């Protein structure tokens, strides 16, 4: 289960970076389901999420954040919010 507030903001970032309708982005959306989620697209998304939450992911984390659920969970870890908060 992912935190709703985080999901909404991450969803907004994904929609904006990849030029999608926000409603089409789900927790299971990933590089496999979103066209243009290539290496530079991934980096643009990471930068957008970092800016939205004022966090900075570690270099070794960046390649692992390949779906919306993982992004939300990792942001939650940084901002100290758990699912359901």
């Amino acid at each position: 289960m992912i935190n709703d507030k985080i999901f909404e903001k991450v969803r907004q970032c994904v929609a904006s970076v990849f030029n999608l309708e926000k409603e089409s982005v789900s927790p299971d959306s990933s590089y496999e389901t979103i066209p243009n989620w290539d290496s530079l697209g991934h980096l643009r998304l990471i930068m957008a999420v970092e800016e939205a939450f004022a966090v900075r992911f570690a270099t070794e984390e960046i390649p692992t954040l390949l779906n919306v659920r993982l992004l939300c969970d990792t942001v939650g870890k940084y901002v100290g919010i758990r699912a359901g908060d």
Partner: protein
Amino acid sequence: MIEIERLTREILAERLQEICAVENMAAETSGGTYRHPWTRGDFTMDLPGKWTYSRLMRDNAKTIGFLVMSDKTSPAGMHYLHAHRAAVLKEVRRPNLLLDAYNDVFREAKVDGLTWFVTKQQSYHPAMLLWYIRVLGCAVLKERKCIEEFTGPLSGTVTVEADGKVVSGAAADREGQYFIAREL
């Protein structure tokens, strides 16, 4: 199935046409950031370590990307790994493919006793520069002379943080290139 393999001279000869096609497609889809696509002559030229440290990326039989590297020695005597060219077809849905290719080369180079990766990146392609910094973990050398004086530990030469648009604390050279490095 996507695989990364060593780009030997023989494999290059076999796949040269496809590799040039990937290069040209990368140039066409780069939005003008890829200014000097390599020709057949650039790809076939011999360089030290090139046939050991270059990689081909393929999806079953189809060539989908490449990474051309060599080992170099700086005037200061530092032996390091250098990237010349890298491209992946835009339609390839695997964001870490280039990173995996680099890591594959880094592992091999480290076993061979190389300790540093040093390369240059054009300032007109900030997204790729940022990729080197944030994803590959590189830092930017302050100025071109750093590469000539390069001896390993970067004390005092690397100060850079990317802010998403520009690199601060470093200057591109007259050709608009940044020099970047990381320890293997």
